[in-house]
């Protein structure tokens, strides 16, 4: 007798869909809900893992909208340290749905709050994106001016976007008790001072996250009708939990809620698609093999596997920088052993990982890990006698190339 299960394809059965399939070979895994054109303007945001998505979309010819950038000739690492080139604008990591909603509301109204300026060692930080200025700014007023300028850019950006790719990362956050303002880091980690009378821990439940995402979608559609959404859940576990649960239990709670909300939104709205990167990385047939040795960071191999699934439905464009698009086909490793972790070329900026320091050395200066120190050497110039000195004067104007590695200049 025939049942609804009789004619199902192999992908619908655990044994043929997962257990007997190598983690890199998951077939017919993701079906897009809508296409993305190469000229669609894409904005990316979310938790640390979202940076991988943004990098790969860019490399594969998709049109990532950039609202805040630095000149291309500047060193990429310097730009990244200052929050440029990571996402479409310098909002840093957006870990929670509430943080996203807050950014949208603030950018719409141009709201800046003086209490969102945190101080450390005489320097001032934007508490809502504390890692984008590694050494902070000179004054609280300057932080507020920067935030206002940033919000203007964000508002302009969302008025122009066609596809919004958002990676949900956490349900745990720290909030200001009087205003409910949500921060991406705990006060005192990068800057500021933790005061239990001012700040409190919050762990959002499924209703909170759902309502925030629905409200965020509504706001965005008011700004840009026709906008489409692609949601993902970060497979990166919590570095630490401030809840009473074991960190593994807290991680499972958090990711389950986020994954559930994605399903609810994708089921409810035609303009919301869910891309299952979380499932690829955490699948039992992967046996944690996409994680680095800390069992937390996703290796570049894992990212490549995820993005291959994405590009199977949203084909990559032939572009000059094909490092991601032309990644060699990856199959099961001979002997079945763990593939050695590969350091990701696209290092991600992740404030949450700074919490690790508190679990290791209480005396570690967390800030020093993300600051760039500059040392300028000194050299004593001896006194020269005008009468006897032979002075060589060179006019460095024409296009000269000396016998050392040289580069085109404008000198």
């Amino acid at each position, binding site marked *: 007798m025939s049942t609804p299960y009789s004619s199902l394809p192999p992908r619908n059965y655990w044994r043929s869909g997962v257990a007997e399939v190598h983690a890199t070979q998951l077939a017919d895994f993701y079906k897009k809900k809508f296409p993305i054109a190469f000229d669609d303007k894409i904005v990316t945001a979310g938790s640390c893992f979202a940076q991988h998505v943004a990098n790969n979309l860019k490399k594969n010819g998709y049109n990532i909208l950039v609202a805040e950038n630095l000149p291309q000739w500047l060193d990429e690492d310097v730009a990244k340290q200052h929050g440029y080139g990571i996402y479409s604008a310098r909002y840093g990591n957006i870990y929670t749905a509430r943080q996203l909603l807050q950014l949208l509301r603030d950018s719409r109204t141009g709201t800046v709050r003086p209490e969102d300026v945190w101080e450390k060692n005489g320097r001032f930080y934007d508490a809502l994106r504390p890692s984008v200025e590694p050494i902070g700014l*000179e004054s609280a*007023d300057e932080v507020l001016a920067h935030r206002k300028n940033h919000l203007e850019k964000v508002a302009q950006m969302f008025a122009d976007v066609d596809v919004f790719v958002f990676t949900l990362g956490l349900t745990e956050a720290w909030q200001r008790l009087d205003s409910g303002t949500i921060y991406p880091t705990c006060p005192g980690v990068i800057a500021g001072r933790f005061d239990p009378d001012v700040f409190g821990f919050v762990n959002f439940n499924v209703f909170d996250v759902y309502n925030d995402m629905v409200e965020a979608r509504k706001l965005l559609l008011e700004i840009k009708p026709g906008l489409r959404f692609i949601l993902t859940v970060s497979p990166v576990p919590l570095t630490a939990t401030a809840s009473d649960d074991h960190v593994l239990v807290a991680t499972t709670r958090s990711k389950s809620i986020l994954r559930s909300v994605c399903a609810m939104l994708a089921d409810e709205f035609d303009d919301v698609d869910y891309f299952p990167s979380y499932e690829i990385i955490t699948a039992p047939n992967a046996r944690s093999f996409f994680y680095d040795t800390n069992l937390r960071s996703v290796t570049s191999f894992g990212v490549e596997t995820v993005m291959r699934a994405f590009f199977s439905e949203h084909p990559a464009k032939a572009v000059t920088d094909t490092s991601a698009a032309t990644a060699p086909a990856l199959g099961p490793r001979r002997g079945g052993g763990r593939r050695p972790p590969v350091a990701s070329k696209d290092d991600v900026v992740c404030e949450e990982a700074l919490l690790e320091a508190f679990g290791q050395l209480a005396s570690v200066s967390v800030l020093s890990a993300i600051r760039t120190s500059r040392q300028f050497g000194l050299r004593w110039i001896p006194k020269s006698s005008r009468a006897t000195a032979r002075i*060589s004067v*060179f006019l460095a104007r024409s*296009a*000269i190339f*000396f*016998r050392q590695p040289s580069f085109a200049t404008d*000198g």
Partner: protein
Amino acid sequence: LTSDEPKTRKSLRFTGGTPFISLDAYDVFCVVGCRTSVNAANLIAQDYSSVRLGLPGGQLVSQELMDILLIDRFRKTIAGTLIDLLAQSTDKPIYLIPDPLWSTKVFEEPRGVIMGAIAKSTHAADYADWVYRCLQSAFAGKATVMRQPADTIENNVFTAQTYSQNSIGLGRRVVEHPETDFVHMNGAYGARILEEFFATVDKPAAL
């Protein structure tokens, strides 16, 4: 040191007598270059600004980043390359005499728009300081940077127009620069710079 490029070797022969720079033949090296106005104004200030500088650029960045942008530009000039190579090759003192700020005649040119906006900004007083500070940082430990004499600067942004009048080009042929030239300075400016230079080399310089 010598150049890979024939034209430059020819130029070196014309200005220095030989197609190469003899490291043993001199006690002091003096590099003239680094287009301060071009780098600072045209490449950066038209797009970026900091609260302290208050430039017309639309995107606000930290003063630290403004410095990084300008220092990077200075290091990537021909003068910057030459200073690097000299510093790697010799322990003898190296001085940088930066190109002068553009003269106020730049107002008559399209590029003057940015410079004019800088001059009108409420924080223009910091402009020349910013350029000098970044030059110092760019070549710290490698060269002593000569500061453009304050009496040659107007509004902290321009070289006084008197120094750009009747300037001549000292190439194979002496050529008079056009009346509208705002980049090249005249003999009076050269004399002033030499005076400053010798005053500097006469005293130990703290980098």
